[in-house]
């Protein structure tokens, strides 16, 4: 449980962080809450040579409403998202989902940026952001770019971020007044989702139903054409490719996706 040797560098500004990343290329990794990166390093599944600690970057810890856009700093912790008044009012799904991630310790360290960049197919916030039509903002030596959530998750643990880019912000249209619900299916309270379903209005995001978070598009289309919830939810597993594991087979996951989608849509409509 001791990681391989690495160098530690503390970034005091975003510019410093970017300079460090530019200098070390893919030998470096930004460190946010460390709750995905450090376990991997301790198990020696990851061995970056340089860690660039983003902890001092308070400038990336915020939630604010900017016109019709909710803007969230990449370093905002799950716990802070969960308790944030602005988020609760204008993107309540995201605030709720943040409170369902892991346990108290995880929520007090883990950040939304870390969760999104880590791109675990079982991550909760990623699917929720996808359901809310979110956008990710990256900054690098070539400037700033916006990447829609639909284009951000390329595969398990794979995103279009370059090694010298930082995720700085997450944006999503305000969801004020839209129905929402989150169904997270776990064995124990602290577990990752076996399957999760995030509903935002008529949008449905799926957790752990493929190598990336994805939208239940067949369900969404059915809803758009006026199908009742029960019927639309039956289509929730279409186009998914969940992993087959001894404790949760692919067939079981598809079944769960249908049941949970129905429940989430019912709850969101209520």
């Amino acid at each position: 449980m001791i990681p391989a040797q690495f160098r530690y560098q503390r970034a005091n500004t975003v510019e410093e962080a970017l300079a460090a990343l530019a200098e070390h290329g893919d030998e470096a990794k930004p460190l946010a809450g460390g709750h995905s990166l450090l376990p991997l390093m301790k198990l020696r599944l990851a061995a970056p040579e340089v860690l660039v600690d983003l902890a001092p970057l308070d400038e990336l810890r915020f939630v604010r409403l900017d016109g019709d856009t909710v803007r969230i700093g990449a370093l905002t912790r799950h716990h802070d998202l969960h308790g944030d008044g602005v988020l609760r009012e204008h993107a309540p799904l995201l605030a709720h989902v943040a409170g369902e991630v892991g346990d108290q310790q995880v929520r007090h360290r883990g950040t939304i940026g870390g969760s999104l960049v880590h791109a675990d197919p079982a991550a909760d916030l990623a699917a929720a952001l996808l359901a809310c039509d979110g956008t990710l903002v990256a900054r690098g030596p070539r400037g700033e770019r916006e990447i829609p959530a639909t284009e951000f998750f390329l595969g398990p643990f794979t995103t279009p971020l370059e090694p010298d880019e930082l995720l700085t912000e997450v944006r999503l249209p305000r969801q004020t007044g839209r129905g929402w619900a989150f169904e997270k299916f776990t064995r124990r309270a602290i577990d990752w989702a076996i399957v999760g379903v995030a509903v935002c209005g008529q949008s449905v995001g799926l957790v752990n139903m493929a190598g990336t978070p994805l939208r239940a598009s067949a369900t969404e289309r059915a809803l758009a054409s006026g199908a009742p919830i029960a019927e639309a939810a039956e289509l929730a597993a279409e186009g998914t490719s969940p992993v087959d594991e001894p404790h949760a087979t692919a067939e079981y996951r598809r079944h769960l996706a249908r049941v949970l989608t129905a429940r989430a849509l019912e709850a969101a409509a209520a």
Partner: protein
Amino acid sequence: MSIVGTRVVRVEDGTLITKGGTYVEDLRHEALTGAVHATFVRSPVAHARITSIDTSEALQAPGVVAVYTAADIDLAPGQAGPVAQPWLADGVVRYVGEPVALVLTEQRYQLADAAELVDVDYDPLEAVASIDAALADETLLFPDLGSNVAQVTGGEFDEHAFDDCEVVVTETIVNQRVAPAPLEVRGAALAWGEDDRLTVWLSTQNPQLARTIIALGLGVGEERIRIVTPDVGGGFGAKIGSDPEPVVLGWAARRAGRPVRWTETRSENLTAMTHGRAQQNTVTIGGRRDGTVLAFRLEVVQDAGAYPRTLFLPTLTELMASGVYHFPRVETSSKGVVTNTTPISAYRGAGRPEATAAIERAMDLFAAEIGRDPAEVRRTNFIRPEEFPYQTPTGASYDTGEYAAALDRVLEAGGYHQLRAEQARRREAGEPVALGLGLAAYVEITGGDGGGESGRVDVNPDGSLTAYTGASPHGQGLGTSLMMLLSDQFGIPLERITVRHGDTDEVPTGVGTFGSRSLQLGGSAVRRAAETVIERARALAAEMLEASPDDVVLDTDRGAWHVRGAPSSATVGWADVAARAGDGELSEDVWYDEGTPTFPFGAHLAVVEVDTLTGKVVLRRIVALDDAGPVVNPLAFEGQRHGGLGQGAAQALLEVMSYDSDGNPTTATLADYSFISATELPDFELLHMATPTTRNALGVKGIGEAATIGSTPAVHNAVVDALAHLGVRHLDMPATPLRVWQAINDARKAD
């Protein structure tokens, strides 16, 4: 008023909670100055020939002091049942996690880097990764043994045993492998002294047994080994005595000429510490349609893991096969097989939970088959109070029991009939969330090892007390219980009583804490010693009070002796008596070996809700009655029950240590191995009953494992009961959502 039977906050807790204990890893002992750090290179494959081990690169790594392999070790191999177990794998590895090499470094952080550089070539062999694969005997773990079956008992069955039965049900029930996962992983610190004695600070449940094992392993006399047990963060049976690692470390400390420190990692612990349970049990139960069971047969197959060191487990299961029932005919057999998996050893209950799980599932299967309520079928077959002492067909001699009363109390407190009505209502209405009620009536055996226990009591010159016990408490709160017993006997307040244990130089004889034995035997030993000391003090007090010994009494409210009938006249306190006593006169050291096994019993009702659409089970209630005789400290007693209920429910619902067909563990981190937490448990509803035993000086039975034993089948039965109307008659533990969902689907298809 006596302190015994009152809720006393455990004296152990203040430090453990506020400051933290001092575990092996925390020790800052002079003798450990300059210690090197140790880690084991462990096999990543289940079964393979080792074709070469190259340590040269590792030896060059920063801080490396030594790297040892089997070729270096000049000790006779250890023994695991009928086979030899090398200290480090010698030519063959037989499970993932088996130690292959030992690395010593100057600093702890250097260990992992150096260990990665030990280059071992494995030539894979076919893995025997399940009981069925073992029984097939196609690949043998130990070719010299000629079979993977390491032990066989019983099995000469009467082919007519079930002839007079109207109904016979049979089922094979898996009692899955689980990991003990104590909060404190294994650890040891070792130093050879100038006097050529080895001191081992060890996380163990019994230092005296550890001393024997380590001395034997190192081929030295026991007088050359001293074991010191600091605080121990849980053992659950897996820290009984010593594992092979401390022997290797003791050898290495000598070879390297340096003290050695070792603490395994959490991931290492999950595959390298022994596992528990791992039985496959076939039950056959037959009887009449009125609910009377006439014959029961239990065929046990114990997966012993790669090195079959604990083959008493299946025979203990056989001993307890018929549980709380008076069955005319009981037949048992057992086989212990080796597989390419982590060795199996004791785990909370060790052999008895498996017996209870088998018979309690069998009773439910039988009840379902004849269409009677499981509570009623149990009641029909209970051993009645007037039948005690009761000799079971399998050879156990039960002391005392009130089995029917226990069940009735639980049914009443739980509102069993109302719950059944609610269950019927939900089924009628076709509600997707089904209600399940599970019962378990159990009896278990504590202090069943046949060993005695040591106890010593000293009155100190200042009138305080010091007691020494051969028990080795590690979280149970036994120290507080012994202090309460002594305070009651001597009239000395708790603050002036000290209980010491765990250093073999201080307590040279002892058996330890396992098998729920420590109060009934350790407590009886201390009680016996105290009685002798008090009688000697009586003589002294009589002299001082110028009365005959028969005329002086000990006022245990004040801790003072006075002449009978004259409490307000002259008194003599403990310090006064101590001042008059000769050297050692107020000290007594006893070996208590009159205690014979006792048989705690109880009944549990579990209530679950099962979401039949997803298969998810939520444990709503546990109503438990655990009768272990008179209770010394209700707080500690309930604590043992809470832990036991949680651990037992965990086996029913969550925990399983799994392997794929190549023998790779698939639940080797705590992210995958699902232990239970408070969130998954209801508030426990505890009922009290105390039926004393006649079999020891205190009249007490053990409570350490009882609740674990009852709760597993209660929760398991509840899950099956919830699904009964859907046609499910059995599913194996743990009742994970996937399994439940599949069982519902299978039943639907079969319909």
